């Protein structure tokens, strides 16, 4: 089976490409220097000082909070939206999908500043709430784009058949549609979470009152040099996620996504 080996090699190369920078930043979290460019010896200092840095720890908390809440809200709204959009008339569907892509193609700065202007005009105080709303806004379109193709793939009469057979709409959605579109929902949620956790510009302009995420902390320290504590934090985050995944993978055995 040559094909099988080619596949394995290909997967290996791609994962190597994805993880090369992660390996570098993990290695430099043990570097005995403020610089992340030249190896100066081994130390665990950065791990120690990480936990004493209130600002970084607080930012981490807000990052995770905002990412979890925003991606959950965006996934729910986006999934139902895709459902509705799929059954719309063609012209309506096209119009809405055009609007849907605006937050994707708009430069962050434009989205960030226009949302900020809106919040200020609405007399909302910038902070956690506005940051979550902003994140939901830029995540929803990605969820719609992830879920909609699954609807297109679904045998079109499925819902009608279920309803004709007497299922309530909610039951039909849960038992008939949901299993079909589930992979789309999961990718949508993953993409939303990924975008949220990594956003700087939109977050910056739509937060205030001491609420800041890791991206804001990192970008604003960039000129002075990103502290190796951040490398340490990233390494810890990565290991945590990895362990969590391994545990879940073991426990859920065969879970179809």
């Amino acid at each position, binding site marked *: 089976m040559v094909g099988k080996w080619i596949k394995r090699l290909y997967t290996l190369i791609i994962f190597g490409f994805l993880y090369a920078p992660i390996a570098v930043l993990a290695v430099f979290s043990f570097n005995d220097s403020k610089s992340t*460019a030249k190896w100066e010896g081994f130390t665990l200092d950065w791990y120690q000082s990480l936990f004493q840095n209130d*600002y970084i720890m607080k930012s981490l908390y807000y990052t995770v909070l905002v990412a979890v809440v925003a991606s959950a809200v965006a996934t729910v709204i986006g999934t139902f939206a895709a459902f509705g959009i799929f059954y719309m008339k063609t012209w309506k569907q096209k119009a809405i999908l055009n609007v849907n892509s605006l937050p994707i193609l708009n430069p962050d700065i434009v989205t960030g500043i226009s949302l900020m202007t809106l919040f200020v005009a609405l007399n909302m105080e910038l*902070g956690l709430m506005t940051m979550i709303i902003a994140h939901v806004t830029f995540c929803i379109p990605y969820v719609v784009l992830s879920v909609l193709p699954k609807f297109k793939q679904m045998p079109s009469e499925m819902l009608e058949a279920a309803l004709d057979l007497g299922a309530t709409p909610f039951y039909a959605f849960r038992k008939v549609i949901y299993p079909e579109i589930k992979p789309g929902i999961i990718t949508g949620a993953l993409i939303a979470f990924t975008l949220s956790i990594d956003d700087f510009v939109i977050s910056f302009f739509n937060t205030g009152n001491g609420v*800041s995420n890791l991206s804001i902390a*990192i970008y604003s320290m960039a*000129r002075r*040099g990103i502290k190796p504590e951040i490398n340490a934090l990233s390494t810890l985050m990565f290991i945590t996620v990895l362990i969590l995944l391994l545990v879940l993978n073991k426990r859920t055995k065969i879970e179809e996504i």
Partner: protein
Amino acid sequence: MKKVLSLVLLVALMGTLFTGCKKDDQVVLNVYNWGDYIDEDIFDIFEEETGIKVNYETYATNEEMYTKIKKGGTQYDIAIPSDYMIEKMIKEDLVEPIDLTKIPNYANIDTRFKNLAFDPNNAYSVPYFWGTVGIIYNTNIITEPVDSWNVLWDEKYAGQFTMVDSQRDSIMVALKKLGYSMNTKSVAELEAARDVLIEQKPNVLAYVGDNVKDMLISEETAMAVVWSGEASTVIQEYDNFEYALPKEGSNIWFDNVVIPKGAKNIDAAHQFVDFLCRGDIGFKNADYVGYATCNTETMKLLDPALMGTTYAYPDDALLENFEIFSDPGDFITEYDRVWTELKAK
């Protein structure tokens, strides 16, 4: 999977509820600062001494900070903009006046840094740190001493140096090289500066935003235009670097503490400014940040070896042709045009 997710969600929400409950009577001071530009330990000292809690947030550029303060929607009690930005904020009524009588430690500030043109009577701002822009170079690679911007036009060093990826700073270098003022309002002078920058462009390794220190340390580049604070961090860790103040002159800059418009706790803000001006607190900050302090009491506590170094406390004679940036007003569009012409080529 679902159960785990909902659990995470629940914990996260509980967390918000708890952090939401703050003691109502406690004054919370919102401090808005450049990233990593203060020793955060002093917040605890401040809280211990005054009972005022500090809520800390950071920004990366003057312009980002300006946009947020101008738009409102937040209340910052303290911010630390640079000179030209202070001038602009005063012009646009974005800062509260500072009552110097409430800041006894203002007496500690070196008179050289008081009453500068961007805030003539220090009615709105109190000096924090200052520094210069110059050339840092790796003495293992660049063996002849550097003292002029002209080295950045020397073919010998093609591909071995970086410029700053910021309109005004890079155009400043060209203007100064040509002997003009860096605050020029002459289109002809700006275009002359553009032409020398275009001439230089093929030799520039990169226009760097903020990771220049790593590039120097890993010897990716041998020479770079940098802020003195960055030079100081590199030189204190590696002794094969020197920092040159070009004889044609350069930028001398100041970051001052201001109280932005919309501040809720003006009294507490004054207390905080006074606290920053204290000799020992100034020392903690200067020691942590590594930039040059404006505080005479702090100077006394510093390592005497720093005095007279080009990167921290240079002799006045070296700063003869140095200028402070002023707010160009609408003329900034001309800078932008020139810069775009350089970058679009």
